[in-house]
């Protein structure tokens, strides 16, 4: 394709650094537009406050999504994506792969992701970029000679209604890697960072080692203002934000209609907080207003914050806004539980 440029894979978290410095790996780098697909960085990622500032610098942010996520709400343009019930596809990342058949045509103006790309490409004059329909694409993927012989090609799946039931043989779980002495292998010979980065690999990166927290450590002088440690977790009810606004799940994860934090009874008593009260959790990165559940089942110096809600489910602010931009250069993942905060009883109304 003419005008095509080499792909640069960059973890989204580094957008913040790139738009601050104008550099990536020593090269002048900037972005004038951002297209977000299959992701809700503001609700799921860290440092959403800085990410919003970054998006302001980029200038034009497009989100393609099935739902009005917080990221979609902050975007300049939202492209509605058809749900899995309205589009055909193949689910390969499961133990029993199946052809996802279309139950109904996409509602409203929604399209599947691929058809959105086709439309954008055509509008930009690249009609030849995605010449195939979804079915043609799936046939390219499925109709290999081996699949046809084995009876698991496109037409076979379609004739079976999507799923082909059979005696599946599963690969064994990967064995524990061990060294020549038969012991657990900690040293990583071939360790490489997740994606291209300026970081060099130090010898200690090849072994497990202790790394102090960037914000949540005992002697952090900022703990005078923010004395409590914050953390969240990924359980069935607080995973990523794809289950936000699910009233069924809310029966187990909201208190009187609001997400809640957990705070130890001692810390709560010092602040005049009891279960059911509205509280404001805040630090230098952001704040959230939500209900409190007072419990003995947490450290006295720690507060559990919920994960996976949209901002519009909180009275004000949102929980992820308390996280900072602390990306590990090797794994290039964010430190979700590295935060300090203060909690106070909330007396204001909903904003």
């Amino acid at each position: 394709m003419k005008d095509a440029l080499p792909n640069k894979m960059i973890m989204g978290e580094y957008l913040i650094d790139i738009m601050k410095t104008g550099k990536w790996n020593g090269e002048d780098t900037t972005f004038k537009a951002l297209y977000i697909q299959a992701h809700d960085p503001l609700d799921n990622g860290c440092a959403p406050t800085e990410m919003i500032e970054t998006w302001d610098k980029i200038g034009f942010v497009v989100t393609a999504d099935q739902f009005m996520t917080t990221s979609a709400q902050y975007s300049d343009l939202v492209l509605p994506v058809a749900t899995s019930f309205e589009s055909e596809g193949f689910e390969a990342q499961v133990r029993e792969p199946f052809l996802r058949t279309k139950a109904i045509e996409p509602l409203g103006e929604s399209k599947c992701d691929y058809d959105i790309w086709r439309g954008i490409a055509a509008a930009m004059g690249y009609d030849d970029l995605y010449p195939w329909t979804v079915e043609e694409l799936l046939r390219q993927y499925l109709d290999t000679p081996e699949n046809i012989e084995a009876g698991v090609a496109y037409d076979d799946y379609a004739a079976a209604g999507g799923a082909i039931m059979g005696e599946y043989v599963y690969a064994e779980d990967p064995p524990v890697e061990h060294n020549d002495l038969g012991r657990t292998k900690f040293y990583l010979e071939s360790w490489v960072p997740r994606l291209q980065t300026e970081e060099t690999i130090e010898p200690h990166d090849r072994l497990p080692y202790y790394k102090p927290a960037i914000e949540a450590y005992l002697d952090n002088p900022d703990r005078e203002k923010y004395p409590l440690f914050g953390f969240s977790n990924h359980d069935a009810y607080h995973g990523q934000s794809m289950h936000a606004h699910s009233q069924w799940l809310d029966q187990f994860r909201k208190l009187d209609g609001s997400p809640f934090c957990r705070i130890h009874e001692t810390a709560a008593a010092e602040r005049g907080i009891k279960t059911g009260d509205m509280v404001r959790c805040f630090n230098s990165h952001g704040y959230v207003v939500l209900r409190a559940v007072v419990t003995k089942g947490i450290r006295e110096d720690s507060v559990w914050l919920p994960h996976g809600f949209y901002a519009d489910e909180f009275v004000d602010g949102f929980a992820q806004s308390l996280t900072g931009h602390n990306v590990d250069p090797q794994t290039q993942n964010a430190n979700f539980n590295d935060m300090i905060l203060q909690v106070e009883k909330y007396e204001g109304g909903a904003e």
Partner: protein
Amino acid sequence: MTRYGMAIDTKRCFSCNKCSMACKVEHNLPEDVLWSRAHTEGGDYYLTPSGTYPNDLHMGFYTLACQHCAEPACFEVCPTGATSVRDDGIVVVNYEECIGCKSCIEACPYEGFVPLSKTRPTLWTGKSATRRHPTFKTERCQSAPSASSALTAAKYPSASRCVTCVPARLAT
């Protein structure tokens, strides 16, 4: 006479409530209705412990649903005969005869699950097991998993969805 019961290993239950959610999906229950729920035995609120912090804390869980009592109080008070006890001991409600007086709910000695919608039930999809007067009779619990869980049903042909959905079953 045959008596059905649900065996739950409370040592393994950690109150994920996936069985409750599976029940809700299976029966398409209204938003505020739960026919079964895992409760916390400990502090005053869900998933909080009792005892003294930090080394003497206690938290356990138990699930609660219709017990299909041998002498069901709901059966005794039903004014229309909508509630009945089958030969196999399952207590059922005939929705065509139910007038929604809630007498059965008042008479039930068990508390802590939500068998009745306080307002007109809001349903996520179409026809519900409880479309008229939501009550807590789980006649379908013995039936095979629905077609929508065909893949799971193939692995666990005799299990209800509340069983196939809980992580603890993997250890059995």
